[in-house]
């Protein structure tokens, strides 16, 4: 194992101290953002291209061993000096590019050099989909690793982590760097080994949970001293740690990880015995079922009991006696039960598999098997679905992604869609967005959208369109938001007698295979958002001539970025491709965020395009604002809790 001696050996577990910003600091940083300091010009980034050319002069003639040796020597210099020095970075990039050419047969394009350089400078590189972000990351990751940093390349899921580590591994090896990968289900020892590698590929969840585990090991002790003492004794805490601190992160699909997922805190928990609670939950459900629709109101994701409902509950509670006499606990339990019954829906928020309730991640459409809801909600839903009730999860530690990623000494990211959240990325993570030009001009054709009032009209139109494209021999990718919607469409397609493949949280076993074939002629693929990110759909033979892959969005997402991701599946790397949206007002986005329009338009037929656009833009804008606020609140809440809970030590 080639664990490089850390340049940061002085700090046993390097991570950034949380600097709470005062009002003045926030103001200054906002000024910096608006004055343009947060956006870096293309010119200054393009210096890296010439620097790399200069560094690449005699590399092609070197033997593999010499290449490795040269990388080692450069690493020593990088450790001594700043790796953000453009000459040194250019030399490093040239080495990486040479290694990639030899091992993968892929040579980094100039735009990839620019992207890599932007990330090395702690920015977020916005690169069009299909521009080879995975390859770009090797430039930054290898340079930082040569400089002795523990580099984490963070992807959105285990599949991508594994795939990227595998495909890019040879590049690092050619430079004498070790590569590790962390995926779900590994034992701690394997993980520790993977994290000891120079470059570690992992998913955001895995690394955040591993960090939380480390924090639990460290506990509230003053860290450096305690670890040094432990170190003297041999064994001890430092032996039980997984990570080598939070030094250098490259976050793939950064907007998804840093923004979308930042809403929900990560919770490390253990299952505890459930005693009387199960009975309580059962009774709460019984009480909740006795209430009518007049007794409660659904709000956002919660339930509000009306005055009438409260009165009825009181009589019911008095009759039951015991804990149900006290209004506070009674109402809280019943409210949770009502949420479980009415606010959380099967196949939308969760699905039931093998007698277990599994949460669906609303952003990715993927299952999150090891997550559960808090405060009895999970147990209530399990009861509602007649599953075996798991014990109450007892929280051991929690952290939000916002806090977690802010602790990295050096944070960089890449994504296809960042400009919409550039302000937030700057405010929260001090990440500047650098837009990297495309290598070849894009050939994506965006066709006119169609907006209907009713959903059934939408499905009809979508099926007709799919049939038409299918007949023309073009591959079609249809995006849906929920498992249920994807299954509705599947039923319609089956009815129409069209062959298709379905990819959703329930049917995710052949994901790689389905995606790999999605670009073949005449192929119809129906997928939830999970197909959105990181998957590269290669066109089959002869497809490019017919116009390439066609993407149909049947619903818009809460955020425009996620829509852009879906359309980004087509027309990659200069291929032809087209996309359109076939939408209905009778959808969650409009009914939840623009109920005024939803109530008036949802039963109409086809709407004029301008009207549809306005309605969806307003709804999306409101949704984005609501989520942005939620994230800000979470961050503020974390700060507040941090202060209030200061007496409990520096735990998470």
């Amino acid at each position, binding site marked *: 194992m080639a664990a490089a001696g850390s340049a940061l050996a002085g700090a046993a577990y390097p991570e950034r101290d949380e600097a709470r910003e005062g009002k003045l600091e926030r103001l200054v940083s906002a000024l910096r953002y608006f004055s343009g300091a947060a956006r870096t010009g293309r010119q200054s980034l393009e210096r890296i291209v010439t620097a790399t050319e200069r560094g690449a002069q005699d590399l092609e003639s070197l033997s593999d061993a010499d290449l490795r040796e040269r990388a080692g020597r450069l690493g020593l210099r990088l450790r001594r000096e700043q790796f953000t020095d453009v000459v040194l970075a250019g030399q490093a990039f040239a080495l990486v590019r040479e290694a990639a050419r030899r091992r993968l047969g892929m040579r980094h394009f100039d735009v990839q050099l620019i992207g890599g350089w932007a990330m090395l400078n702690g920015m977020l590189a916005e690169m069009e989909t299909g521009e080879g972000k995975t390859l770009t990351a090797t430039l930054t990751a290898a340079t930082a690793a040569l400089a002795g940093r523990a580099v984490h390349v963070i992807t959105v899921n285990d599949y991508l982590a594994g795939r990227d580590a595998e495909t890019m591994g040879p590049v690092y090896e050619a430079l004498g760097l070790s590569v590790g990968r962390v995926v779900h289900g590994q034992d701690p020892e394997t993980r520790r080994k993977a994290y000891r590698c120079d470059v570690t590929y992992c998913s955001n969840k895995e690394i955040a949970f591993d960090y939380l585990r480390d924090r639990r090991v460290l506990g509230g002790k003053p860290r450096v001293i305690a670890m040094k003492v432990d170190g003297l004794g041999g064994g001890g805490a430092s032996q039980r740690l997984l990570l080598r601190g939070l030094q250098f992160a490259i976050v793939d699909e950064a907007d998804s990880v840093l923004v979308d997922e930042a809403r929900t805190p990560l919770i490390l928990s253990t299952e505890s015995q459930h005693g009387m609670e199960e009975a309580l939950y059962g009774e709460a459900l019984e009480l909740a079922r006795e209430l009518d629709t007049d007794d409660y109101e659904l709000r956002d994701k919660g339930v509000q009991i009306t005055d009438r409902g409260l009165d009825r509950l009181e009589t019911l509670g008095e009759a039951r006696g015991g804990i149900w006499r006290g209004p506070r606990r009674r109402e*809280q339990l019943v409210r949770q039960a009502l949420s479980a019954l009415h606010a959380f829906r099967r196949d939308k928020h969760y699905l039931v598999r093998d007698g277990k309730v599994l949460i669906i991640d609303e952003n990715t459409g993927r299952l999150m098997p090891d997550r559960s809801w*808090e405060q009895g909600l999970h147990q209530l839903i399990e009861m509602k679905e007649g599953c075996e009730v798991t014990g109450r999860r007892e929280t051991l530690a*929690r952290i939000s992604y916002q806090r977690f990623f802010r602790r990295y000494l050096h944070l960089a990211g890449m994504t296809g869609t960042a400009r919409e959240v550039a302000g937030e990325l700057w405010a929260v993570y001090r990440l500047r967005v650098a837009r990297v030009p495309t290598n070849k001009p894009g050939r994506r054709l965006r066709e006119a959208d169609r907006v209907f009032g009713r959903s059934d009209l939408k499905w009809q139109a979508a099926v007709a369109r799919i049939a038409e494209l299918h007949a023309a021999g073009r591959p079609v990718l249809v995006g849906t938001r929920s498992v249920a919607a994807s299954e509705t469409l599947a039923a319609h397609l089956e009815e129409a007698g069209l062959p298709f493949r379905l990819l959703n949280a329930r049917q995710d076993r052949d994901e790689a295979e389905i995606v790999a074939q999605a670009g073949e002629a005449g192929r119809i693929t129906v997928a939830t958002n999970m197909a959105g990110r990181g998957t590269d759909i290669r066109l089959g033979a002869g497809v490019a001539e017919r116009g390439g892959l066609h993407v149909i969005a049947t619903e818009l997402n809460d955020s425009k970025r996620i829509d852009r991701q879906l359309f980004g599946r087509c027309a990659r790397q200069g291929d032809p491709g087209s996309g359109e949206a076939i939408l209905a007002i009778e959808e969650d986005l409009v009914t939840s965020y623009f109920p005024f329009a939803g109530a008036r338009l949802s039963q109409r037929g086809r709407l004029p395009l301008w009207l549809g656009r306005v309605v969806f833009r307003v709804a999306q804008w409101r949704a984005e604002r609501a989520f942005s606020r939620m994230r800000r609140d979470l961050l503020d809440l974390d700060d507040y809790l*941090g202060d*209030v809970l*200061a*007496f409990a*030590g*520096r735990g998470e």
Partner: protein
Amino acid sequence: MSFDLLSPSWYRVAELRPRLRSHVRLHRHHYRGELWYVLEDRVSRRMHRFNPVAYYLIGLMDGRRTVQQVWDAAIDRFGDDAPTQDETIRLLGQLHAAEVLQTEVTPDVAELLRRVRRGKPSTWMQNLRSPLAVRLPLFDPDRFLERWLPWYRPLFGFAGFVLWGVVVGWALFTAAAHWQELTQDFSARVLAPQNLLLMALIFPLLKLCHEFGHACATKAWGGEVHEMGIMFLVLMPIPYVDASAATAFRETSRRVLVGAAGMVIELFIASLALFLWLDAQPGLFRTALYNVMLIAGISTVLFNANPLLRFDGYYILGDLLQIQNLRQRGQQYFAHLVESRLFGLELPEFDATRWEKRWFVFFTIASFIYRVFIMLAIALFIARQYMIVGVALALWALFAAFILPLGKGIAYLLGHARLRKQRLRAIATTAALVGVVAALIFAVPLPYWTRAQGVIWVPQDAQVRADADGFVRRLVVAPGTIVSRGSPLLVAENAELTPRIRVLEAQLDLLAARAQAERVSDHARWNVTREEMAGARAELAYLRERRDRLTVRSPTSGIFVTAIPPQDLVGRYLRQGQEIGYVVPAAMVTARVLVSQDDIDIVRSDTEAVRVKLVGRMYESFDAQIVREVPAAVSEVANLALSSQGGGSAPLDPRDGSKVKTLNSWFEFELALPATRAFVLGEHVYARFEHPPEPLYRRIYRSVRQVFLRQFSV
């Protein structure tokens, strides 16, 4: 959310075993019949108040039980009234922030540093925000007070009370007896420059005694006093003492007495000064004593006892009402009212009784108005002395009092998370309120008038004056009788006039005879004689008229009143124009009213009607007409009843011995009162000059302009 029993953060605290630090003491208090526990941190000298449920939790924190066990016990004991987990965490956080909590875990040092850093600028930020009240702690007087404790402790008992009562009571009695002496030439004495200097020297010394009063009272009943320093109130250095240890006293009366101790001492000193002053020889010492009385007596009552300012009176009121933090909670209650009633936020019921809420409303409004008033007055006062510094200070004070809260209010409206769901409504409500206020100020015409004080007096033309020089021979009518216009009132004689008339008459006879003779004989001479006769006749007519004028006639119908007693009048020599008396019209009476310089412009140019009320009968008012106005400003009162000494509005210039010179210039108006009823001469009246209704802003503009014109002679 906040009502949830369970907290997602509970896991952080559940296994902790907290306990209170050893230097903490708990006291049991009753506030308005409710039980509270006051936690005294004897190191930081801070007090924290907890209700019995919180106290129960605190009591269980012994370093052996975990938070979970403590909370479970509370649930068993209080059931539904038990604190939620969030509340429990907040309590722990509060104890931690108060630095009285100890757990087995090292607290987050970063938070501690943040708190220290946040705490520091907040003091100087506070000083910056209220530049008229800057605090500087200096030393710890506790050991000094400890050493002298046996000397003053007995004073805080029955003996001390009796001694104080006797001295102050006697002083009050004496002061009443010497009231005239004490108050004469008051403003001259006080505002003379050398006196101001003396006052500036005496003031801090007296306030030092005042502060020691608080300190000794606190010590005498077992409290500790650890901070003394200087506060710059309106740039004037004033000592202060931190007597917050008294908060821990269980007896309300003791807490009140600690608050009042400063004033008690000052009143005592003022009493002693009074006795000395009465015996002292005129000189610097006597003046100094006078100032001591003034400061210790009056300023104490006006400022320290005033509960609307945050001096002793405020704390005494708080203790008497048994409402702590009246001001702070009052403001919170107002914010609560605005948020819940106007903005429609769903908030939990404000934690206060009905009775307390009434006090909050009253106190908050009254103290706000009073504070703004005092602040502006102070700023103007300084501005008059030091124009630039004063204006800068005044602007800064205004900024701190209005602009800053306004900015905060706007930021709150636009950005505060609490308003999220109701923001539109909040903004709309605020805009509507601002609109209504703006309309009231700028658009709605409001009735407008100027008030002036005056006195019932006879009109100018009712005066009876001597028309010619002469000795009074007799009164034709007795004073008090009703006379008609033109009827003779008294007759005077001029010893020189009668012979001259006789001579002239004789001369005229002579001339007539001569003319008779010359008419035929000598036409030329006849003409000359006729000329002479015309001249003599003219002179005679003049003299006869003068003689007639010696008979003084009534200028109008009414009751004849003499200004000089009648018995003194006969035989008295009158000069032409001298006032003899008045003929008071039986029906019509006039009032003479003084209008100040500030109001003269509007009164002159824009008076629609005048209403008059009598001091003795405020319930009726009469229409009046302006009969006459003195075109120029006068600085002498025609009637002493118009001066402030006579109960009127015009202060007299104390430097002038004549007693009719006023301090400022006034304009005199003569108003005709209705004839329908009788008035008493010399009776005070209030006149109201009614102007056309106009919006408030013009009036505000006018008064601000006048203030500037007057204050800065711009």
